[in-house]
């Protein structure tokens, strides 16, 4: 968690990249992480693929299906990531759905994350109240931050509650959508970005969903601390593979 806080404590706008582990090739996980750090990315979300990713649009869905076909599993991801901290210093977050974590065992999963040097976890379908009642103590014990999502529909009261429970940053979903669904931000989103900024939350906000290029990155970070790119990066990997990651990142900022 401290790695995340350190990163967010600078004046710089933060660029975070999401990718699905095991895609395009099973062995690409570690090379992708290396390329991203080398290219100057500030934070990485490693997607643990799931068969039924219901918050995701077609691009991430397909990458997940593909990764599972390639043979990606929770155990294999942990094996690939063992020793990653010898060379990688930026924050690493695992993002996935709750069921695979539940099957692995929440305690075992958290312990493994800690052993590897994972800084936080994002599990969009683990609801806030269940997290607090059943799992927060386990996450904390292993030094893991859990990040909550907010959307344009989230009430201010609930945002304040999620802010109070967060330790690191708030994941601000840009619009009512699944990942990768919209292109560009309209009036409505920009108003939402401003509205949230005006709340002066304790945790910095990082915007995700619908950020695909320099323009959307700039718009999203005009108010927020940073932005996350997922689907656009996956598309880049599909078309160009791992070797040109630096070009993709250079095109964002």
């Amino acid at each position, binding site marked *: 968690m401290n790695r995340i806080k350190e990163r967010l404590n600078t004046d710089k706008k933060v660029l975070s990249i999401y990718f699905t582990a095991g895609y395009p090739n099973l062995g690409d996980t570690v090379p992708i992480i290396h390329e991203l750090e080398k290219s100057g990315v500030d934070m990485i979300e490693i997607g643990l693929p799931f068969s039924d*990713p*219901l918050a995701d649009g077609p691009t991430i869905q397909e990458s997940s299906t593909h990764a599972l076909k390639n043979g990606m599993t929770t155990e294999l991801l942990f094996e690939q990531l063992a020793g990653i901290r010898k060379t990688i210093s930026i924050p690493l977050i695992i993002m996935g759905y709750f069921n695979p974590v*539940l*099957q692995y065992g929440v305690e075992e999963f958290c312990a493994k994350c800690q052993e590897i040097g994972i800084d936080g976890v994002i599990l969009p379908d683990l*609801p806030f109240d269940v997290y607090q009642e059943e799992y927060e103590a386990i996450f904390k014990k292993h030094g893991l931050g859990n990040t909550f999502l907010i*959307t344009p529909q*989230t009430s201010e009261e609930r945002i304040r509650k999620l802010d109070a429970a967060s330790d690191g940053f708030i994941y601000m979903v840009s619009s009512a959508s699944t990942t990768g669904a919209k292109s560009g931000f309209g009036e409505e989103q920009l108003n939402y970005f401003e509205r949230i900024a005006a709340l002066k939350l304790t945790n910095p906000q990082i915007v995700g969903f619908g950020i695909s290029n320099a323009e959307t990155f700039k718009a999203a970070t005009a108010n927020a601390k940073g932005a996350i790119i997922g689907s656009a990066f996956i598309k880049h990997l599909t078309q160009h593979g791992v070797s040109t990651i630096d070009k993709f990142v250079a095109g964002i900022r």
Partner: protein
Amino acid sequence: MSYHANEKGYYGEFGGAFIPEMLFPNCEELRQNYVQVMETDEFRREFQQLLKDYVGRPTPLYFAERLSEKYQTKIYLKREDLCHTGAHKVNNTIGQILMAKKLGKNRIIAETGAGQHGVATATVCALMGIECVVYMGEIDIARQAPNVARMKMLGAEVRPAKSGSRTLKDATNEAIRDWINNPVDTHYIIGSVVGPHPYPDMVARFQSVISEEVKWQLKEKEGREHPDYVVACVGGGSNAAGIYYHYLDTPEVGIIAVEAAGKGINSGESAATSALGKVGIIHGSKTLLMQTPDGQITEPYSISAGLDYPGVGPMHAHLFKSGRGEFISITDDDAMTAGLELSQLEGIIPAIETSHAFAIFNHRKFDKDAVVVINLSGRGDKDLNTYIGYFKI
């Protein structure tokens, strides 16, 4: 101990709402309103009226004399097959379309596997003049052509789900994604007692009309409201929830749930969730589901598309885990044979889903004077091609 949902939508350890924040406002709006809306006089009146005049309720409780004679016990059939559109599914869609209207929604989405729930949804949308989009797996669209045509004729748009395994679970994912993208004007009509709270409880309440009627009908025929057993097939579990509902907390009424074993529980081609499932999360609900050791949801198999779901509603997971319910799984072959037998002994051709429930008599003995009520959840018209192919009729 109660076998109904608690305030938070839990049946024992099962249920809840494991949903991403994007769905929270949608489910929360429904959660805050559903009980209150359902309990208004106006809602009750409209719901009862439509069930009576449009669906054709009450459905008969019929004493199956020849079947009873053959199996040496007293078998009653609850004739949900006589509902408009041919199955119990419409009880729920009538309830939910009224709910959607009360909540001011002007667009309906639904998922469907075999197309029964899709047809029941398209029907009520036509009735109310509301836009309707039904998600259906690409593979199911190909194998259920007549129901696709029915939905289109009723004015619904049928959208193919092309992700994952392209069947019911993926159609459900697509419907949920649509709801995420359209949180304000759209109501999602789920077709069974599955999904996040409050769906399992809401759908169970709409289907509870089934056991509500059985109570007074049985009183007329047997002089008592309580049968010895209620029996139903379980896909997601809505027809079962309906016939169990008013007996859940009456221990002297035995609850029997019949699941699809497909080609056999250990064949790798099965949909018997209680036997093969483990606790996990599917479509926003904590329940039993079929999955790999790594937590990936697997594709079930059954000859009947309506039982072909990798999970089971949280009510049923709890009935299984607590031992309150007796779970039996029936193979394709045994179900088909039972369907043919019912046709020839009683003149009723059941849906293949329903046939599974009738196969239990070859697996389990009942006392001669036991009263067994079976939910005849649907009629077999939609399955004629499968019956024809199977029996080479």
